[in-house]
């Protein structure tokens, strides 16, 4: 297997909101992917203002065999707020890539997450009959669902969802302590670029495995 093919097999495109309301789910999601030995690919990983977002997304989808789409925030949460179409749009591009592209794109697999089990059918009935997992907005449940999906589709064995969740909590303590030592404030942590967070997890897991 070439390095490029290997990257393709290990890359996981993440399609979810990147605002602060989703951070409680995004952090354990990214941690779980890295814990299982895969590479999260997110649209915010390059911040070139001159690059059209759709081109970046297309490239990430093409580079990733696996993808995780979270539709739990497509519904507007308050009056006069628009519903959010980026997530179902990117899911459509990803599924389209699998349908219409030749070669390795045919091996692509995706996990679709929602808050409640059948809610998505009201907004996206084209996906009826698909196996969609729900996390109830619970970070621990999200970890379990993502871990189970990897075991069902990609890997033979993985630590339990509970073990990964507890390890994530221990990681957060080290993360918090190190950032405090470096004089980061809580707001700095909230606004931290995801790539920096990913690098930190990488180093932490590497150290832990020694």
């Amino acid at each position, binding site marked *: 297997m070439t390095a490029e093919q290997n990257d393709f097999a290990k890359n996981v495109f993440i399609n979810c909101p990147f605002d602060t309301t989703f951070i*409680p789910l995004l952090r*354990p999601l990214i941690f779980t992917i890295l814990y299982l030995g895969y590479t999260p690919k997110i649209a915010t990983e390059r911040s070139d203002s001159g690059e059209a977002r759709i081109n970046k997304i297309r490239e990430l989808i093409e580079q990733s065999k696996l993808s995780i789409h979270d539709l739990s925030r497509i519904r507007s949460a308050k009056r006069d707020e628009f519903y959010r179409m980026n997530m179902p749009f990117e899911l459509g591009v990803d599924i389209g890539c699998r349908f219409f592209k030749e070669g390795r794109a045919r091996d692509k697999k995706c996990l679709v997450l929602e808050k409640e089990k059948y809610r998505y059918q009201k907004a996206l009935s084209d996906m009826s009959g698909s196996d969609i997992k729900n996390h109830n907005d619970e970070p621990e449940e999200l970890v379990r669902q993502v871990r189970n999906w990897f075991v069902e589709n990609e890997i033979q064995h993985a630590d339990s969802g509970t073990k990964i*969740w*507890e390890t994530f909590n221990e990681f*957060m*303590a080290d993360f918090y302590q190190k950032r405090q030592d470096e004089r980061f404030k809580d707001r700095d942590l909230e606004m931290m670029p995801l790539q920096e967070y990913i690098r930190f997890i990488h180093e*932490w897991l590497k150290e832990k495995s020694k």
Partner: protein
Amino acid sequence: MSKKPGKGTSKRVHIISRKDGWAIKKQGASRASKIYQKKETAIKNAQKLRKTGHDVIVHKKDGSIQKWEKPKK
């Protein structure tokens, strides 16, 4: 990173959100020692370990840090 994760100078005990309540878990232990329905009860019980040199780290539901209590001297 200069030191191995979780291998600092102090011992740690975590209060972690679980589906069925709040767990007390000593760092390095293979599993949580006990699960309490109420977070306050878990914290109260974990705080007893401060006398034995443990840091007590209380996590929020999303795993982030709510409170970090140092050992009692």
